[in-house]
């Protein structure tokens, strides 16, 4: 028995906006004689939209209406009804995430695109989604190697360090193909981003707004940009401007990758020889890509060709954001979908404290989530012990019940997330200790960290599992 879930991915980037539809197949992989184990067994992209320029209004705000009509048109073109979409994610990336109405657009659009289409933003998530969308994690696993994937878009470059299939580090630079714009007809430079302006002034380059762009004129700037990429992958030592150029953080310095791959719009001119007008797209993307192709970066690393380039992020958003909870979990009532719940992750050593102390810790930490003294909805995450005794579960349950008293008194359900397979027994323990049967959701098999958000969709596979999206919501 397998079941399909239709998933949508929408990427609103610095320069382009795209949409894909993916079919996720879930199946119970366990035999008839054991507890169920339901997993996603296949992810297939079934529709790819055209790539359009992200519509921006005169006042620099995102043109919400145009994006909505784009989404509607694509649904019609793909021949699907909005109601058929069961999961998915809208991601707002690069410079677009910095626009004034980014948050507003994101939330409205996630609701518009489907019932359980979640809103996501944040440079780390972007790096992970792009790498997975391009299948780089699979390459790394199959070849038992480490790969740095750089998703070079219009405004930012997202780095992901992947070792044996796992993303172990991420970083992001304000470096992209559309930080300098050129008029396609007159070749006049029409835009220089503030950070590139700083770089130009620092290096005393003669590139100014209104100048006529030529390859030679821009060459010194492109060279500096490639230099920054080299620093980002550990080929060169830090420079003060590199620090300025970081969106929030770079990759850690103490790790060496064997391979490198590129995704994003600029990647196409890294993998393919490009001849013709370098300003075809009205920016410096082609020049930047070509310069990377000719640089020593490709001598230093084995170049891996990803499954997707410009579509990596959108495919990642459509195919790689939804996870499935463990198959023995607890939930009651129909609260789903539950969206945008911040996560409070407790430390492993806290889990081992006596129940009273553990409860106190939870109470203290819940204070962080209070806005004007009011407690917002929070999901509590634990690692959990592998195959604990029943006494240990009871102890954990008592601690949680003490710590969550304030949340229990609210309308919304208590959400507990564990990594180890203890969701059902812990949920039942909370029921019986609190008498609160209607409002406990206890999921396992899900790894989250502080700073993450969780969205939970409607039950699938005969109600055995819940689809879950773990994400970040960071606007600069």
């Amino acid at each position, binding site marked *: 028995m397998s079941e399909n879930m239709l998933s949508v991915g929408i990427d609103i980037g610095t320069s382009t906006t795209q949409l894909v539809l993916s079919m996720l197949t879930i199946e119970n992989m366990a035999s008839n004689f054991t*507890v169920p184990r339901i997993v996603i067994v296949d992810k297939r992209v079934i529709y790819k939209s055209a790539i359009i320029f992200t519509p921006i209004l005169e006042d620099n705000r995102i043109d919400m209406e145009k994006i909505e009509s784009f989404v509607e048109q694509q649904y019609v073109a793909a021949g699907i009804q909005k109601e058929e979409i069961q999961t998915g994610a809208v991601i707002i990336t690069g410079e677009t995430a910095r626009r004034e109405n980014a948050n507003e657009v994101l939330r409205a659009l996630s609701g518009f695109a489907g019932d359980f289409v979640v809103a996501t933003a944040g440079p780390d998530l972007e790096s992970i989604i792009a790498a997975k969308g391009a299948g780089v994690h699979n390459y790394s696993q199959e070849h038992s190697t480490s790969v740095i994937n750089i998703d070079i878009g219009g405004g930012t470059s997202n780095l992901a360090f992947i070792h*044996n299939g796992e993303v172990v580090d991420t970083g992001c630079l304000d470096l992209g193909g559309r930080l300098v714009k050129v008029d396609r007809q007159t070749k006049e430079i029409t835009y220089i981003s503030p950070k590139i302006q700083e770089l130009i002034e620092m290096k005393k380059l003669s590139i100014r707004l209104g100048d006529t762009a030529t390859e030679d004129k821009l060459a010194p700037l492109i060279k500096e940009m490639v230099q920054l990429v080299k620093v980002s992958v550990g080929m060169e030592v830090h420079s003060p401007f590199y620090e300025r150029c970081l969106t929030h953080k770079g990759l850690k310095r103490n790790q060496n990758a064997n391979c490198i791959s590129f995704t994003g719009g600029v990647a196409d001119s890294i993998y393919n020889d490009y001849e013709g007008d370098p300003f075809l797209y009205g920016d410096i993307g082609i020049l930047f890509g070509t310069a990377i192709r000719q640089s020593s970066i490709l001598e230093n690393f084995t170049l891996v060709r990803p499954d997707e380039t410009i579509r990596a992020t959108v495919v990642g958003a459509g195919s790689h954001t939804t996870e499935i909870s463990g198959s023995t979990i607890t939930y009651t009532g129909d609260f789903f979908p539950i969206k945008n719940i911040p996560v409070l992750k407790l430390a492993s050593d806290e889990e081992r404290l006596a129940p009273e102390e553990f409860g106190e810790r939870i109470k203290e930490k819940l204070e962080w989530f209070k806005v004007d003294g009011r407690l917002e909805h929070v999901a509590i995450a634990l690692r959990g012990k*592998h195959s604990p005794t029943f006494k240990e579960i009871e102890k954990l349950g008592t601690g949680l019940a003490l710590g969550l008293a304030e949340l229990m008194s609210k309308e919304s359900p208590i959400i507990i997330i564990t990594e180890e397979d203890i969701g059902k*027994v812990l949920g039942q323990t909370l029921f019986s200790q609190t008498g609160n049967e209607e409002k406990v959701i206890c999921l396992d098999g899900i790894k989250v960290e502080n700073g993450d958000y969780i969205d939970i969709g409607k039950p699938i596979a005969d109600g055995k599992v819940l689809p879950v999206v773990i994400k970040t919501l960071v606007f600069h």
Partner: protein
Amino acid sequence: MVNENEIKAYIENILRDMVGGSEEEKKPANAAVALKDEQGGNECDTGCIDDITEFDLKKQLLVPEPMNREGYLKMKEMTPARLGVWRSGPRYKTITSLRFRADHAAAQDAVFSYVPTDFVEKNGLVQIETLCKNKDEYLTRPDLGREFSKEMVEKMKKACGKPKVQLVIGDGLSSAAIEANMEDVVPAIKQGLKIYGIEIDAILFVKHCRVPAMDVIGEETNADVVCLLVGERPGLVTAESMSAYIAYKPTVDMPEARRTVISNIHRGGTPPVEAGAHIAEVIKTMLDKKASGIDLKK
């Protein structure tokens, strides 16, 4: 007389050669066999070697120079099969042979040993037994392992009363499985059922138990659901795996398809506490649908 430390170093060297560790690899796999010096004196009498079954086989790679150690270990992580054991000439290495025998011995012990009376009493179980007189008869006469004497039936009926759900523990082919898991599974089942308003009273312990013994218990007690937790036939991976056989109103000679089975309950499989919580829900579903086994899937 030779110096104590020299003897120790000498033995350590032999052992190191036997288990084939290279210089850079003084890891627990090999260190586990090193002698311990307790109080001096004659070490051969007073020394003890570490339990070789303590070491996690999934982390033990005996191939001396693997092309990709990390990849090999990752593969081993996926399976309990004894991969990467290397060889000495055409044979296993000593450590591999010893471990194999130790695991085999544990499996045999699990079959031939009994669940201690202390354990049965401590957990407040009501002990009954099938017609088998000893382990030999139990193993050779499966038919007797599913029948009870008149006295036993009386004892069972008296202890159980009129249960809605009757919980039964059976030694089956692994007493070790019962000792390892029962104390975590049973309270989880009880807690889960209590949420649904179902109380568990007397719990039976059946010595020399075959699975169909639960059918007799079902008929005699008139329970709506009988749940038997029984030790599985042990293998070389674990001797502590337990199964739950659950049936709605079981009857003697009913088709096997009416049993719902949840197997592989042990630390390395489905965690006992989580299995208990799941079993409680399965029982509840059976009571609601008045069916079990294949009928439950309709």
